[in-house]
């Protein structure tokens, strides 16, 4: 069994606790070892890199990379934002001696930054063969259309994250297709949800996320699937605000990738924390269960 360092980040310990729960559950199901990073800190998210011209946005994630360097060969960051910041730190430390020096002055020791950084999709694709998924899922998600929503920071900027196609990413598809789910064409899969503007500039988020939801519905999607807690917050937690702002009546469930996989393995929505979402996924769950009962 391969064991990975696990960097949950702030969201997965509070507002996205259900992503942590379902991630650990799926890891356990497939025998993937995860070992939480000792004494990790906030990656800086969006405010750090934007605020001080870059340095803080590197030093904060650099401390986590440094801690990971003393542990397993790879660190997995399920939050797309944390993944992006760790990759940024690695990229910048590798090419910038002055920044390394600054980091080492803060850490008081030579910085370790060569641990492999991977995201949740990458981990699952590496550890789970589609055939194995298909055998375990027994077609539980047949007839369900999932919208693979990648957002921005998982795949951009390509020279930094070096993951999938920045305009038309597809890496979530093999495992989800193996569950029996359909993955329709979804043109808004990398459109921005409005990012961190939810508090300071709400109208940007509501409009951007409304467009994503509308596009999903036009594509006949039953639920969106994401690996980004911030996207999830904007699309799920703020869906009521979107409805109020635009006079819409959306009820589109937004699942974390590990929740969709957990459902495919037959776990209950409660075990996966799907009941912690703002949008009720009851109708979707009934369809999944109804299909099982009918067959």
């Amino acid at each position, binding site marked *: 069994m391969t064991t990975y360092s696990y960097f949950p980040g702030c969201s997965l310990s509070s507002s996205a606790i259900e992503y942590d729960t379902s991630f650990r559950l799926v890891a356990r199901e497939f025998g993937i070892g995860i070992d939480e990073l000792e004494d990790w800190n906030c990656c800086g998210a969006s405010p*750090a890199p934007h605020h001080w011209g870059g340095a*803080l946005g590197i030093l904060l994630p650099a401390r986590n990379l440094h801690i990971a360097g003393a542990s397993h060969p790879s660190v997995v960051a399920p939050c797309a934002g944390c993944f992006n910041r760790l990759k940024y730190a690695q990229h910048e430390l590798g090419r*910038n001696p002055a*920044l390394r020096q600054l980091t080492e002055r*803060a850490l008081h020791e030579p910085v370790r930054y060569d641990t492999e950084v991977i995201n949740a999709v990458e981990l699952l694709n590496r550890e789970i063969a589609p055939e194995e998924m298909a055998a375990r899922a027994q077609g539980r998600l047949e007839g369900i259309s999932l919208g693979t929503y990648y957002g921005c920071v998982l795949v951009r900027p390509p020279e930094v994250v070096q993951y999938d196609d920045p305009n038309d990413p597809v890496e979530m598809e093999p495992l989800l297709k193996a569950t029996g789910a359909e993955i329709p064409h979804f043109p808004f899969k990398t459109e921005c949800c*409005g990012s961190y503007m939810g508090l300071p500039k709400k109208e940007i988020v509501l409009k951007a996320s409304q467009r994503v939801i509308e596009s999903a519905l036009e594509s006949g999607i039953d639920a969106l699937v994401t690996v980004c807690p911030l996207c999830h917050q904007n699309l799920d937690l703020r869906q009521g605000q979107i409805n109020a702002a635009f006079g819409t009546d959306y009820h589109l469930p937004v699942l974390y990738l590990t929740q969709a996989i957990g459902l495919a393995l037959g776990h209950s929505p409660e075990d996966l924390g799907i009941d*912690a979402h*703002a949008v009720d996924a009851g109708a979707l769950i009934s369809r999944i269960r109804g299909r099982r009962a009918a067959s």
Partner: protein
Amino acid sequence: MINLSRTVTEGAPLVAEIERRSGQRVSACLQCGRCTSTCVAAHAFDFPPHRLMHMLQIGLVQEVLASRTAQLCLDCMTCSMRCPMKIDVAGVIETAKAVADEAGLRDTERDLRLFRREFLRNVRRHGRLHETSMLLRYNFATRKLTNDISLVPLILRKRKVHLFPPKVKNLRQMRRIFREINGDARPAPEPETGAGE
């Protein structure tokens, strides 16, 4: 009427600085407008991205640095991905924002500034973000006490909050990180070679 030859000359050093640090050439922009057509936040900007590029071309740098566009850009990088001239438009805008910060330019988006301030103070204090206290402090700072208050019952019901902040054990190391950055607008040092490739 704007005297173009004068603005180009006056703005040239700062435009060169933005080009150097972002590694982009603003003169390569064809003004096709594709960046603007893909931008999800353009409706909230004072100048859409392609106009910002044009302003840099004609040397209206101060206007760019003071623009709402430079502050509100989400850095989603969609424009950079779609530019037919392969210009990293978001990178240019981010660089303009950093230059404005370093020049001590007062930003006009007060709520955004306060959001970043409260976010980073929270991280400095605990090492990790404590969302509950961040939201409360932000709402007090902006005097918008009811902002997102409608979400609170929902968040409580869904058991998504820590009442007490989580804490990093090695807070001294965290403090040193913030101290090295100096608590003010310290830019990232630039690599000696290979900058802006």
